[in-house]
């Protein structure tokens, strides 16, 4: 069985026929070729596949493509503007919030969710907000700094 789906990813609509069992993350990576979204586990733990689904964070490994029919998805490739990085991307770069980079796309989108829900989080709130994203390189410390830095930038930008 295949099912027609229409999913908008990073502002562009894609109409495809998919098997019901196809995960959204494989739709994004294998069908659309947008490989910035990563797969790091098979039990919804690591958060490497975190995307924004209709504006809120979701683990794309725990969602079928058919469930996302009609939805709007933002991946790491769609976060930056035409010419400039998103403040979170800038802050991860400025604060050395990444090493091998594999968890980074998911970590940045999880951080996006965190700041959506709490524009001015404390370090402890950041640590809790990122509890669903694993990083084996950084010990998280510079990720916390990066998110804090982005929060300050983003608040500065709106005030």
């Amino acid at each position, binding site marked *: 069985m295949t099912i027609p789906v229409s999913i908008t990813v990073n502002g562009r609509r894609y109409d495809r026929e998919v098997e019901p069992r196809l995960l959204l993350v494989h739709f994004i990576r294998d069908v659309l070729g947008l490989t910035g979204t990563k797969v790091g586990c098979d039990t919804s733990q690591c958060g490497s596949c975190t995307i924004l689904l209709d504006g809120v964070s979701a683990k794309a490994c725990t969602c079928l493509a058919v469930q996302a029919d009609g939805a709007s998805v933002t*991946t790491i490739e769609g976060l930056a503007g035409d010419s400039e990085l998103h403040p979170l991307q800038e802050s991860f*770069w400025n604060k050395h919030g990444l090493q091998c980079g594999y968890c980074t796309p998911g970590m940045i989108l999880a951080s996006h969710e965190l700041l959506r829900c709490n524009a001015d989080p404390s370090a402890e709130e950041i640590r809790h907000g990122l509890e669903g994203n694993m990083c084996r390189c950084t010990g998280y410390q510079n990720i916390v700094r990066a998110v804090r830095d982005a929060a300050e930038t983003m608040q500065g930008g709106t005030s």
Partner: protein
Amino acid sequence: MSASTFGSGIRRREDPRLITGSASYTDDITLPGTLHAALLRSPYAHARINGIDTSQAASAQGVVAVYIGADTEGEIAPSPCAWLLPDSGLTIADYHCVARDTVRYVGDIVAVVVAETRHEAYDALDLIEVDYDPLDAVVEPKKAAADGAPQLHAEIAGNQAFHWTVTGGGDIDEAFSQADVVVKETIIQQRLIPNAMEPRATLASYTAATGELTVWNTTQNPHILRFLSSLVIGVPEDRLRVIAPEVGGGFGSKIAAYPADFITMFCSKKLGAPVKWVESRSENYQATTHGRDHVQEIELAATADGKIKGLRATVWAGMGAYLSTAAPGIPTILHGLMLSGVYDIPAIHEDVYGLYTNTTPVEAYRGAGRPEATFMVERLVDLLAAKLGLDPAEVRRRNFIPKFDDGHDVVTGLTYDSGNYDGALSKLLAEADYQQLRAEQAEARKNGRYIGLGLSTYVEICGLGPSQVAGAIGFQGGLWESAIVRFHPSGKVHVMIGASPHGQGEETTFAQIIAGELGVSPDDVKVIHGDTDNTPMGWGTYGSRTTAVGGAALALAARKIRDKAKVIAAHLLEAAVEDMDYDDGKFFVKGSPDSSKTIQDIALMANVAWNMPEGVEAGLEATTFYDPPNFVFPYGAHLAVVEVDAESGNVELKRYVAVDDCGPQINPVIVEGQVHGGIVQGIGQALWEEGVYDDDGQLLTGTMLDYALPRADRLPDIEVHSTVTPSPHHPLGVKGIGEAGTIASTAAVYNAVIDALAPLGVEAVNMPLTPERVWRSIQAAQGRN
């Protein structure tokens, strides 16, 4: 301006592609017509294979081929072990990439399916029928050594892979018989699962017409993988290209050349099409190498005033079902030779038994042998302090090797390069305000709160080299590194290195080395690595050696460039070479800095070669092969502060302070990041992580739901400090920093928990220090009292 970038925490040059999702890891690469491989792995830890029926799988939708062990005979050689530990009775069991008649761990490969899609490949796995005859299994190394234990390999008696010893200094028995005090402990260095966030993957593409095989692989050492693959698969090295694209962490688990890699190459060669294999996380837990797994019986002899007289240990090291690529050297050379730690110990003896067990092969894991050594020594020192009623810091001070800056011999045979161990500890105690913390601890105890302080003072061996030592210790490769520095006509620079960083940031720090040596902007330097076709030979990124060895190669190549550029500049300025001076990218006649030639001017002239000095070749390029004269020995002192909830056994890490000395820091921000990550991995061992097998060899921690990795919300901010003691023999004075945190932190946290529990009478708890283990230790101690 540019010279000052050496030592500055500039932003990483790797990051723009990583923060935008533009980087390509192995699984991100797909070639036209790529087929997908899935591996059927044994569900039994030990079983005979009576028969395999692949007929249904072979005819399933989308399936292109199914291979079992017999199909690979003569086509895939056994997966090699490349560390032939001498004088140890080393016996290497054949590690067939696809099992022939016996499987020896859960995860041993039994068959491979190649299909048009991954879904189809996995569907077909379910259709393969294997008739197994289960056999008894053994999973713990000490049990594997016991009489009557199940035997893994018929030709290897007692499951013993090797018996290695280190003996140094005075008579060890005498040290113990004459000691005022002896302290002992049995330590389980539990099995750890490395968990690089990127699972392993291989994409192999064979072109029959040319006989060329290109392999993209998640490796830490592409040149070694090419070398070994040519031997195993039979594709000549000149036709074999290995590319490590973006690699998502390794921590030792991507050093080995794996059966799955060779099988993927074999499938591509057989089918004449690109074949990709990507492991799932659960498969990673089963089949990507694990770390640690020691049983250690240790004892320390000392005088009544706390002076160490001898250290004696017996270690049973689980090696898994087969010996992985570098495995025999980890619990031996990288472990036993470090048993003197930062202390003056006059007599040391250790026996290490490497045992085959029905488990996933054990390999290097961040620190690789050195955390296991540091833990032993740092536990013993704390036990000695407790026995003598002395502060742990004081006992350490009474035994430290005094400050030295150009070599110190320890009885295990190593010559440490430079160190000031008391300096590191003093700085730590001051930064942490140790006396105040001890006062707070005493106050808390009065209120029934259990706060503990744990110290760990460590030295580690890294910058693995020189090559004649590699030969002497049985490492089947060299341990030098190479670098090519190439100036283009516009003054931009390509650096090609044989090492293969995968998160450590050398694209940045190596650009900073060039900037420091040649006065160009780091932005004008591109560091190229990871592709055997366009980088010089190198032995890889592990053992904190990339900057320590590869960085030295680069610095020396840059100095060759500078020497040549000076000759060209002298010619252009019509001066004698010996009258020339150099400063920050400019060459000028001594005393006349206003009339100079920049390195960019020289690069242009050397490339167009219109006006070169007599006998000087065109081009501005240099190659160096750097074989270090000795290892480097970073060191430091760490402190953990914990609070234990005696009611539940829960341990809270409240504070962590580190002082590390890796010599001059090329980029202190990157150094700090390495320290953070390293420390957290060591904390993980102390508090959360353990790969657990049941007695039948089933992995009970087989998914991320079961194996507890450190998460952001369980950790405090880590306070990082440093001292700077250059290595006397390194061109830049630098030492490694990739593993230091992990080597130190497990012992610091463990010592802190034992310190916290001391009033309750607890002396030891097995790691990880889960609430239940801590709670049980309290119950047992209370029962004794």
